[in-house]
């Protein structure tokens, strides 16, 4: 295995002992094919047990290890050392308060997720005995992509609007609302619109598209938000210009 010397520059902050964050340099010798998370684990095991960060699956599905790597939001378990020839700067995800070191406080995101009612509100309730709802592969495809969000919050760290306007519901939660709105089994769009079409909802997005660029699962939140904007616009016209269409 080809070894390589890696320099990590890691943001450290312990609210009990530090007045402000600072950077700490770690120099480790690693196999070339390691990811940044492997290097952090190596530091924690051999150099500094006090370094704090979240991780679990090491396969880009649990969404724990989002962090800023050389100023870009990344999953540490899928960011390869080979793509970073120089010193690698590692910081907690931007736009979230730092709890400690690389651990952020995700409360705002978690609360916003719940606010968009991200669960099926059935169009027609169905007893279990009646079996599954029919849903064709084409109907599944309409929303499938938006189910793939792992809640890693990279899109919030990338979103300039969220940085400026913390009330903004943000890419992942809006995509999730859109996911249920697009589901052939769901009839809850009206209930979700209160949040989704609000000032803090889709209209806050200025379509920079950074969310989709950083999404490790290719969910394309920007597309979800633009689709939702079109739907909201249609709603508005129906309501204001063609009131007779309203049920």
């Amino acid at each position, binding site marked *: 295995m080809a070894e390589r010397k890696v320099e990590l520059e890691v943001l450290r902050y*312990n609210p009990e002992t530090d007045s402000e964050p600072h950077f700490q340099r770690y120099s480790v010798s690693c196999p070339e094919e390691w990811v940044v998370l492997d290097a952090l684990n190596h530091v924690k095991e051999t150099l500094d047990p*006090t370094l704090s960060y979240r991780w679990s699956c090491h*396969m880009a599905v*649990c*969404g724990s290890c989002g962090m800023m790597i050389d100023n870009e939001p990344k999953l540490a378990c899928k960011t390869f050392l080979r793509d970073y020839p120089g010193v690698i700067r590692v910081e907690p995800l931007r736009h979230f308060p730092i709890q400690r070191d690389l651990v952020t406080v995700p409360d705002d995101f978690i609360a916003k997720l719940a606010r968009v009612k991200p*669960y099926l509100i059935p169009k027609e309730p169905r007893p279990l005995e009646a079996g*599954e709802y*029919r849903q064709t592969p084409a109907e599944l495809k309409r929303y499938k992509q938006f189910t793939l969000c792992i809640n890693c919050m990279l899109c919030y760290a990338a979103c300039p609007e969220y940085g400026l306007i913390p009330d903004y519901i943000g890419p992942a939660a809006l995509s999730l609302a859109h996911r249920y709105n697009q589901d052939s089994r769901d009839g809850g769009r009206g209930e979700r619109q209160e949040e989704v079409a609000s000032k803090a909802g889709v209209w806050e997005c200025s379509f920079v598209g950074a969310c989709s660029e950083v999404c490790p699962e290719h969910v394309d939140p920007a597309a979800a938000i633009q689709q939702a904007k079109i739907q909201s616009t249609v709603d508005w016209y129906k309501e204001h210009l063609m009131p007779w269409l309203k049920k």
Partner: protein
Amino acid sequence: MESVQADVAIVGAGGAGLRAAIALAQADPGLRIALISKVYPMRSHTCAAEGGAAGVIKPDDSLEHHFNDTVGGGDWLCDQDAVDYLVQEAPKELIQLEHWGCPWSREPNGSVAVRPFGGMKKQRTWFAADKSGFHILHTLFQTSLQFPSIQRFDEFYVTELLVDEGRCAGVVAIEMRSGQMRAFHARAVIIAGGGAGRMFPFTTNGAIKTGDGMALAYRAGVPLKDMEFVQYHPTGLPSTGTLLTEACRGEGGVLLNKNGRRFLQDYGMGPETPLGKPVFKTMELGPRDRVSQAFWQEQKKGNMLPTQWGDAMLLDMRHLGEKTINERLPLVRDMSISYMGVDPVTDPVPVRPVVHYMMGGIDTDMRAATRLPGLHAAGECACVSINGANRLGSNSLTELLVFGRRAALSAIEYLQSGARPAGAAALAAGAAAAQGRIRELMQRSGGGETVAGLRKEMMQTMEQNAGIYRTSEGLAEACAKLSELRRRYRKVELHDKTNVYNTDLLQALELGSMLDCAEAVTQSALARKESRGAHQRLDFTARDDVSFLRHSLAVYSQGDPPRVEYRDVVITRSKPGVRDYSGGGGK
């Protein structure tokens, strides 16, 4: 210490914990439910399950087939009444998830699609591409958000159960964010803490799978059952241990040795089936224990491919074509390219067996209740037992749904049986003692042992001695080593003595859980002098139904290795027979 009053406390918010929480909230909106987890629910390891969940749905299948596959797959160590309950409830639970929005893959007519899996006689694995566990977890988590009675305590690590007068009456936990301890007073507790694969160095399991739930129950006097049965999944990436789902083979992928031979035909799983036309319960659709064991045998013969990470076999999916791989196995393709630099569309992927799942766990009955009144358990941390000596792929996601719900119903039955609330003084004393133990660990100095050092020694001894094939010498050595590590663990010293998100402390506690689980594994394995399912002994190569058609029960004994006791298996109608994976099973 601050306390939280709840009717039911659930420890763990993965598939089983969330399913239990929803069942409780639906059954009685007045119940106060405390859902406590050391991680945010969507980080739970259920998310990493790929292939799917088994449940009879198609007209050519039957509950009896699912029962027989499961019992035979488990080498007759399953409790058959529990398996009956599993297979009967499975379709309802999977339809329930569908009604909650789970994006199951579909047939052209809009009905749910199923795929073949190892050891199954029919197609009965419901799937959502190759991210089935991920979708199940997120569907459950999102569904749970509509129930205000489910109060979540995310990133709280439970250190102990509160027990009063022989009844479980709550838990004590550390809030990671503050380092503060909190007592949860609950009339019933459900443990859904997941498996313990992290005892081993090479595993598909995420970092969080450290057997905490098992250790909680074990230390409170509930035995750990059938712990010697550790499942190796045949196909992990050699570089990282990342799982490549059994669905790779369900969809038609084949396993080759270094000479390009489909070697499973040499280990009783032939005759060779035509490429791209998998036959149920044959060749690559054999059960996981057999396939992993065949790898080991073949490796001994020098027929495996040496790689920089050790010997590997080849998983060849090229004949499936890019379209099928993208549609049905997108994660597998992504992982293979990312972590191995191999695209399964154009090249076979090197793989090797990897620790995946604990068949054993907290001893429960088929109502998910333990012998400690008030305490229930479900999911991988529990052993009902429906998995016996070897779990069939796609039964675990089903299990956590069926028994997650069952645990909730049992907890309600327990509450209704008029269980008295525990005495305030006893609860306060229990919580204070728990806090004292954490304080002692935090303040200890001069011990000289490190978490990373002890953990490494534990992993090495498990890898060397408790793997696919075992011997009495190796197991005895492992037992001695683990006793030593348990003693040295008392001298473990933290580097980090601060309160906020102290992962040094967290890892020390997790190591304590793993050491207890590891000792239960090796002591139970040493005592089981036969070969059955995933427990293979080079010195006792045959199954011995006379002496060992019994569940092992490792009973905690403070300061000493566990005592191993036995209990008869529940056999209702399937007498122990020969496990046939030689082409006859699919007929």
